[in-house]
Every structure is written in C-alpha cells, then in structure tokens.
C-alpha cells in the first residue's frame, strides 16, 4: 500500500493529479479507512478548487444529456439512488443509536437492499497502469473482469495481456473497508480465471471496488500481498443487463 507518511503531501499530490496510476489507486483505497488522509484530501480540494472554476468552457455534444437521462432512468440506477438516500438516513440513525441498534439498522438495510435490488452484473476493464502502452493496449483492455452476483463468481479474462515466461498474473481486489488487497487467484495462461466472491459477500463493497493485476513468480505471490507494483488496474462498475443484451 502507500508507504507515504507525509499524509498532507500525499493528499496534496492526489488532488493536484501528479500521482502515478498505482499510487492513485492506493490512495483511493487508503482514504476509505484513513480518516486523516480523507480529511487532508478534502482540505486540498477546497484549497485548489478555485483553479477549476475558470477552466475554459467547452460545449458537450447535444446528445449527451439524453444519454445521461437514459442511464439515470435505468431501474438499477434508480435503485442505487434509492439506496444512497436511505443509506444516508441509516447513517444518521446509526450515529445516534447504540452499537446494537446500529447493527440492527444495517441488518434491516441489507434486507431491504436484497428485496429491492436484483443483483447487478459488475464489470471492470483493466488497463496498463505503469510503463508504455502498445497501440493495442490503448484500444483494448488487458483484462476484463466480471462479477456475477447471482452465481457469486468473479471471472477474469485476458484480452490483450500476453503471458510472460516464468511470470504469472495475479488478480487482486481492493474493497471499501478492507485495508489490504485480497488475492482472487493467479492467471497462468490465456484461460480465464474464475474465483468465488470474497466472503462475506456484500455488493455495496464491490461496487467501485478496484481490481488490480500484479506480475508474480510462478504460482503467485508467496507473501499474501503483491510483490511489486500493480501492472494493470480498473474499477468495478454496474452494468445494465438489459442494455447489454440489446447491444449484442
């Protein structure tokens, strides 16, 4: 993870935009559990914010708003909004309640989530995070990872990633509230890797989770953590199954 004790400097560079991709993802993960870092980031967003106020305006294509409306009108988006609104209320209730009451609220909330939300399909495209991308790698992801919450499986398929002799690709997931990357398995060839969802399974912690691939010796990392920088990175996003079906 980010070995940087200068939290304010790290937050400043994160907001400025100078971190390389793996550092940026590491900060994204760390800020979820590191209150000091999260506060420092907010401070820098406030300090540097005025720089963006006067960015030259550019007119977006006229069809974009219609496309956005379609996306927010999709049932799944509506569910997410519904959940977020209620999650905020639950947070407020939990803050004022005892730990037991908070746990109860979470249980009720989770029950409600399961009742109203069909488990979504989550997909991440992983692109090269460090080094120079080939033309093919710019056009296409190195790996595509999908999470089927019905089957509770995570599948990673190499797309442009090429096997390297003596090295394996190892897939990791970084979830909100989980400080360290969790290994999902090793890809040793062109075949897809299918892994069980991390336990306990909780879709809200998978949404926007970051997936990463490191290069490891044969058999994968023996330390339980990546032995080098992440080579490929991507974020899990919910996919509208209906739209996906229509596009095929």
């Amino acid at each position, binding site marked *: 993870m980010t070995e940087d004790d200068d939290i304010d400097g790290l937050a400043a560079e994160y907001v400025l935009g100078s*971190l*390389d991709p793996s550092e940026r993802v590491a900060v994204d993960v760390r800020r979820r559990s590191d209150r000091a870092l999260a506060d420092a980031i907010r401070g820098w967003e406030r300090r540097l914010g005025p720089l963006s106020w006067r960015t030259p305006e550019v007119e977006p294509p006229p069809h974009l708003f219609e496309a956005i409306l379609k996306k927010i009108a999709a049932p799944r988006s509506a569910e997410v909004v519904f959940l977020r609104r209620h999650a905020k209320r639950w947070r407020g209730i939990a803050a004022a309640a005892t730990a037991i009451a908070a746990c109860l609220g979470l249980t009720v909330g989770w029950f409600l989530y399961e009742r109203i939300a069909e488990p979504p399909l989550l997909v991440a495209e992983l692109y090269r995070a460090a080094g120079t991308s080939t033309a093919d790698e710019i056009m296409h992801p190195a790996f595509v990872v999908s999470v089927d919450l019905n089957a509770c499986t995570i599948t990673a398929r190499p797309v442009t990633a090429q096997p390297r002799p003596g090295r394996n690709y190892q897939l990791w997931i970084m979830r909100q509230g989980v400080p360290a990357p969790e290994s999902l398995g090793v890809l040793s060839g062109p075949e897809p890797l299918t892994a069980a969802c991390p336990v306990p399974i909780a879709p809200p912690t998978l949404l926007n989770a970051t997936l990463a691939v490191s290069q490891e010796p044969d058999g994968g990392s023996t330390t339980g953590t990546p032995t080098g920088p992440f080579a490929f990175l991507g974020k899990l996003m919910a996919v509208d199954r209906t739209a996906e079906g229509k596009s095929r």
Partner: protein
Amino acid sequence: MPLSRQQLIEALGRVAQGDQAAFAAVYAATSLKLYGIVVRILGRRDLADEVLQEVYVRVWQSAVDYDAATSSPITWLATIARNRALDEAKRKTMVSLEERPELLQLPGDDDPSANLEEMEERRRLYACLNELEPEKKEIVLLVYHYGLTREEIARRLNRPVPTVKTWLRRSLEQIKACLGQ
C-alpha cells in the same frame, strides 16, 4: 443557463430528492465547465463524452452527499469531474501541451456568476501561485490542468523524478502556508 451559487445549491438539493428538472438545470448550468475540465485532462473528445456521462450519473446518485457547508457547489462538481477524468487519463492519453499553450494562462477575474466570496478565494489562490518561482508555478498548473504524473514532468524537464516530487511537495506546502489554512 448560468445559476448563482445559491441557485446551484438549491438545485442540487432538489436533485438529491430525485427532481429531474433540477438535474437538467444543473446540467445546463455546469456541463460546459465540466466538459471543459475533462476534455483538457483527457485530450480526446470520445473519451470525454463517456466520462462526462459518468460524471453526471455520479452527480445524480451522489447529490444527497453534497454539503454546502463544506464546499462550494462548483468545486464539488469539478472534483467529481476531475477525479473521474484523472482516473481515465492515467491509463490512456498524453496531451500535447505544445498544441494548446493558452491553457497555461491564469484566467482573469471576470466571471459574472462568481460571487464576492468566490472571487476573493480565487484572488488569494492566484496571489499565492504567483509567489512561487515561475517554473514551479508552471509545473503546478501543468499537473492540475493535465494530470501529468511526476514521471511525465521529469521527462519533460529532463530532471530526476525525486527532484520533481520534492518541487511539487514544497510548492504545495508553500501554497498552503500562503493561504494560511
């Protein structure tokens, strides 16, 4: 259509309640600015189109989290746009600054929609930027507007990466001390 800061705050409050008309008003008032931000970071319109859509879907979903007491509405929106564009840019593109030198200019104080408080915040930040050595100020602006990494800056200036990191951190410390917050 421009909205004042207060109108934008109120519109975001209605978006948080699921009001699509308010969402359309927020889009009309801010999409040119946010598209400007993502186009500049990404340098590619096709990517910017995708990212802008994701930004506004995020705005729709997250408006409930916006707190007017902790940030101005345009800073909150611009942060969502910058973060999404930076995530995308880090793995896709490198912008040719030589083609667009005008983007390095600090803009003037002529935004009619800015209120006095915003204009004062901006004036103070620019005054602090102008206290940096010219090369350091340019680096800070290059990174902010284009999301260049330390490695990219180092290559551009033919300097070691640790030197660039030191410059950036010291410049940012200096800005913080100058702003006094």
